[in-house]
């Protein structure tokens, strides 16, 4: 599954996070759920990588394995050049100040019994980086940095609004100045205008502090806004990876094409003239993923080869070798088929396709 490291991909030593051949299977009474099945991904210093996928794609499991809240079944997770895959809980503890995560739902990720100040200060306390008055000052400064009034330190999470809670969660994650931040759907539980302020906040903080960030989301607009590079997951595997602008302008994998075409854009004129690829069938069960290419059961372009031979995630020559795709139908030079059945490249304006919806 692992491909050779290409020029634009941060090299192993340079990467804040390097995941290679990550596998996470959950064994239960019904069989083995292959949640993540061979994912390789690298994040450079100060880079924001978006991990996009629908529910059941395994993107959150990748995030949890990356910060070792979950133990990979196989593969390797390297943070700052150090292999953390097999480290024990105890051995990991001192390392945890280098990586942190922000959860999706701020109402469940903050202990309801603790004050905001205690929550934000906990990492500092546990890593013995501050105590007493120094701790209080650091907490006040952190709250100010995420745009909260310092007196909120005495409140408890349920007294705050959803947006404020997510800011608390971000302040906690950044309190020890980690070099890697995993943000698992940090805005999906929030309202539109609050989402905007949390996205802005993440962008601002990232610009100031230059931490590497794995931004996990199903929200394509948010990921396009924030991420430098985007990886797309389907059923436990990466299907495509590319710089954000290139992925949106010219998606290669039929699944990426379908995903982008299905996400409605907030512009009536543009939205109604877009061609939409409606996928047939259902998401197959990760208990028994399809043979060959995992997307072949729903792919409008699937051929016999797709049903038997799993495609490798390989680098394309196009665009200076910064793109990766796993599809038999995409040529090495980047020539990709069009899942919408039109001649023009998807994403390019096609005036005649109003009828294609």
């Amino acid at each position, binding site marked *: 599954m692992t491909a050779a490291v290409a020029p634009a991909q941060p090299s192993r030593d340079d990467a804040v996070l390097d995941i290679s051949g990550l596998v996470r299977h959950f064994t239960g009474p019904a069989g083995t759920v292959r949640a993540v099945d061979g994912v390789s991904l690298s994040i450079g210093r100060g880079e924001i990588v978006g991990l996009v996928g629908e529910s059941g794609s395994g993107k959150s499991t990748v995030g949890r394995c990356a910060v070792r809240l979950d133990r990979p079944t196989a593969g390797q997770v390297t943070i700052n050049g150090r292999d953390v895959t097999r480290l024990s809980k105890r051995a990991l503890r001192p390392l945890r100040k280098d990586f942190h995560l922000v959860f999706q739902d701020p109402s469940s990720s903050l202990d309801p019994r603790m004050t905001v100040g205690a929550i934000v200060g906990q990492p500092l306390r546990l890593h013995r980086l501050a105590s007493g008055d120094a701790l209080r000052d650091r907490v006040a400064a952190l709250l100010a940095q995420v745009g909260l009034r310092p007196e909120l330190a005495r409140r408890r999470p349920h007294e705050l609004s959803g947006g404020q809670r997510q800011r608390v969660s971000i302040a906690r994650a950044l309190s020890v100045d980690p070099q890697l931040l995993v943000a698992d759907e940090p805005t999906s539980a929030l309202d539109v205008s609050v989402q905007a302020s949390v996205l802005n906040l993440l962008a601002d903080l990232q610009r100031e502090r230059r931490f590497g960030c794995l931004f996990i989301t199903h929200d394509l607009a948010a990921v396009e806004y924030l991420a430098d590079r985007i990886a797309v997951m389907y059923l436990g595997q990466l299907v495509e990876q590319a710089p954000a602008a290139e992925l949106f302008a010219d998606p290669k994998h039929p699944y990426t094409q379908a995903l982008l075409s299905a996400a409605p854009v*907030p512009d009536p004129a543009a939205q109604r003239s877009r061609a939409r690829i409606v996928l047939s069938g259902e998401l197959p069960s990760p208990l028994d993923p399809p043979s060959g290419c995992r997307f072949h059961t729903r792919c409008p372009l699937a051929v016999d080869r797709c049903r038997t031979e799993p495609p490798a995630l390989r680098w394309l020559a196009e665009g200076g070798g910064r793109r990766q795709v796993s599809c038999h139908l995409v040529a090495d030079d980047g020539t990709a088929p069009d899942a919408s059945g039109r001649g023009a490249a998807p994403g390019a304006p096609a005036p005649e396709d109003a009828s294609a919806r």
Partner: protein
Amino acid sequence: MTTSTAPPALSVRDLSVVFRTPTRVVHAVDGLSYDIAAGEVLAVVGESGCGKSVTSTAVMGLLPPTASVGGSIRLGGRELVGADERELRDVRGREIAMIFQEPMTSLNPVLTIGRQVGEVLRRHQGIGRREARERAVDLLDLVGIPAPAQRARDYPHQLSGGMRQRVMIAIAIACDPAVLIADEPTTALDVTVQAGILEVLQSLRERLGTAIVLITHDLGVVADIADRVLVMYAGRGVEQAPVGELFDAPRHPYTRGLLGAVPVPGRRRAEDGRGRLQEIPGLVPSLTEQPDRCTFQPRCSYADARCGERRPALRALRERDERNEGYEEGERSGTERHEAACWHPVPVRPVLSEHPEGAERSDDAECSGTERSEGAECSEGAECSAECSGAEPSESAEHPEHPERPGQEAAS
């Protein structure tokens, strides 16, 4: 689009919903009015707690007894406010139906889906078991469920989320209701599944002429299928317009803020902090009071003394109101009208889309930067906007007719 002469399928006038508990009174909906014609899709947009779901629950007559409903809800000439439960039961399902965000909780887990669809038909149309079963299969086919005859024998847990939502739609339209209320029908679904559900709704409107009230917070969904949009804020309707006009030229500052808050394709944050998403400073007001002022005033950068003293009604704006001289009854009528509840509607600008909000409003970036601690959350709102408006030369330049504006926040 609809002709404005036909009577509306559903007409809500001055609707108010008040929840009373021993400890507090919540004005969930306050003086809301809208019409929807057959074959029309009206999107009701707003953030959580704005009253959009309460409105539709009130229309369905499904509010708990702690709620008191005022105003008028007319469904095809029949008044629903004050109607007794038997009358409502008769209307529900037959003339008006509703689908919810989470289809699993609305389906009975121990009955096959064919049976559940058929039962609605038998209850309302008094047809036999065999005929009901056949019609149920037809309905499942209509909502795009593949192999409907076999699927009809499945139980809800055997279906995916998208298929369950299709079943809910099939149940809702079983008796061919005039109005379908869809409360966040795709929020719990993945985008590729959402696309399918939106197509089903689209085809219902076209094939059956169902009027659809679509409640959503997703502006992309609105852009996709709505004909007209009603924007709600803190229990009140603040703007109503045909969908294209609303997106091109939002007139209420809240609508404008909401549209600016959504990332749009092709727009990326810039390394230097430009291209920021627009934020709306402050927090949603408490609904425990019913102030006689604009409820958005504490968070609005356009607000002046009048906004804090008198409540603006939702009234039609003059078409292409360049001069922006307060209210003027528009020439357009009915569903074509563009209405806003604002004393200072944002002027229409020629080509808005070429000027992304954040890039243009450098002051905005300055306002909501991380250095300024209160910016994005301070509950007093007024103090934020006061702070912001001090640094707003470009905004003032856009409104030469309101030179006094920046100073007014202090008064509020």
